[in-house]
């Protein structure tokens, strides 16, 4: 009799701790895309750390995204309207490529990598920094290419592609680029 009563009491006790644990609530996964944030941050650094020819130093500084809505959102949220030198940053998500030539930087995301050759063709000879996110992106004409190193987003660089269109890559960017 006593043992069964005790068992009931103990069961009730276990349940109360369980209830308490449940009541404290489950933590909620923070809505964020850390990689999109890192890429956006890198893109803004590319904007700040490179030097464009004088003809591109007037008006707005246009950073165009082809593909990733997440990177576009991060850029818009954190960096839109911030100064890049004497210019104001404008972020655009390109649904087609017809306005691409007004850009200072074009980022072609992983999901739209198939468009990279066309982007390179449209921007040929123009002072536009092309940033890709695909294997062999530099070989396909990009000046900077996001790569994954030990799960982290890093970038590799082809100085010559930038020089060809009169863009000078900053020393720090060069220093931290992953050597291809």
């Amino acid at each position, binding site marked *: 009799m*006593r043992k069964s009563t*005790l068992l009931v*009491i103990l069961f009730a*006790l*276990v349940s*109360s*701790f*369980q209830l*308490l*644990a449940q*009541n*404290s*609530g*489950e*933590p*909620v*996964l*923070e809505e*964020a*895309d*850390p*990689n999109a*944030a*890192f890429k956006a*941050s*890198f893109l*803004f*650094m590319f904007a700040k*750390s490179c030097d464009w020819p004088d003809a591109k130093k007037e008006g707005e500084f246009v950073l165009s995204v082809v593909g990733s809505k997440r990177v576009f959102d991060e850029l818009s949220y*954190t*960096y839109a309207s*911030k100064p890049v030198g004497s210019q104001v940053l404008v972020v655009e998500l390109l649904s087609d490529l017809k306005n691409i030539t007004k850009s200072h930087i074009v980022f072609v995301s*992983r999901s739209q990598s198939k468009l990279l050759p066309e982007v390179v063709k449209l921007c040929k000879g123009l002072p536009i920094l092309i940033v890709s996110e695909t294997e062999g992106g530099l070989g396909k004409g990009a000046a900077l290419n996001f790569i*994954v190193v*030990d*799960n*982290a*987003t890093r970038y590799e660089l082809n100085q010559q592609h930038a020089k060809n269109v009169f863009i000078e890559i900053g020393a*720090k*960017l060069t220093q*931290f680029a992953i050597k291809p």
Partner: protein
Amino acid sequence: MKGFQIILSLVILVTAFTASAQDIPLTNKAASLCQSGDLIGAREVSDQALAGEEAAHPYAWYVKGYIHKEIYKLIEKQSLHSSNRVDAVNAIKKSLSIDTDGVYREFNSKALDFLGVSYYNDALLLIESFDADDNELIFSYYDTFKELMVLSDPFYDFTQFDLDFNKAIAGSYEKLFYADVQQKELVQQAIHYYGLALQINPKDYTSNFNTAIDLYNQGVYKVRLIDYDTEIVELLMIQDECIKLFKQALPFMLKAHEQTPERRETLVALMAIYRALNDYERSEYFQETLANLIKSGKISPSPKMN
């Protein structure tokens, strides 16, 4: 029901009293007073009994414990620092220690069960109003609960209690952390106590899931520190710290997924962690798994309906 329990206790007390009537007159008088409801008078007589030769009798200590327990129940139950409860525990322990033949074991155990449960309930109350800077009493009461239950039943298995207790403490730290995510030591404590729970049951879903979320979210909060002024060296460092946290989160979330493979929250979290680790293939695999489970009706299309 409560009245029935009190009557039952008194019958037990009087039965024991009859069995010992000849050797311990003061103790018997104390028991009678207790039965008549004069608890203060009973306590005085019991103290007189224990000041003399009756102190050698285990029943005399049991009666003292019983009287203090009744006083505690009557006037100090709301007090977390009841001295009568402490006196009751000490007297019952004394009775047990000199009751070498175990004549009064059953009575003592019943009293210990009650007292143990009261400490447990107080620990519970304190967890509900958890204060990270003042939690020694919670642990002290939980330890006392265990100590008394072991005295009552030396083979009692506390595995489930310890698991749930650690989870409840972890949850309390976690709740405080999410109210102020700058206080990182709180989430570290939460993870520590989930870790203790996982030592007891490595497959515990809640501990695995919550640990993973806590680690992942810390990474996200670091990402949010990045702003317009962040320098490249700083960015690289933040990223490395985040990746470390995301990598730490992954095995916990995978373990949680093993236990509950068809839960939306786990699948969504795995998608996020793999994406944060730049493993888009695995992220898309879990995205597809979730889509298939929704399609088959095992998970509802709306998160709120699960």
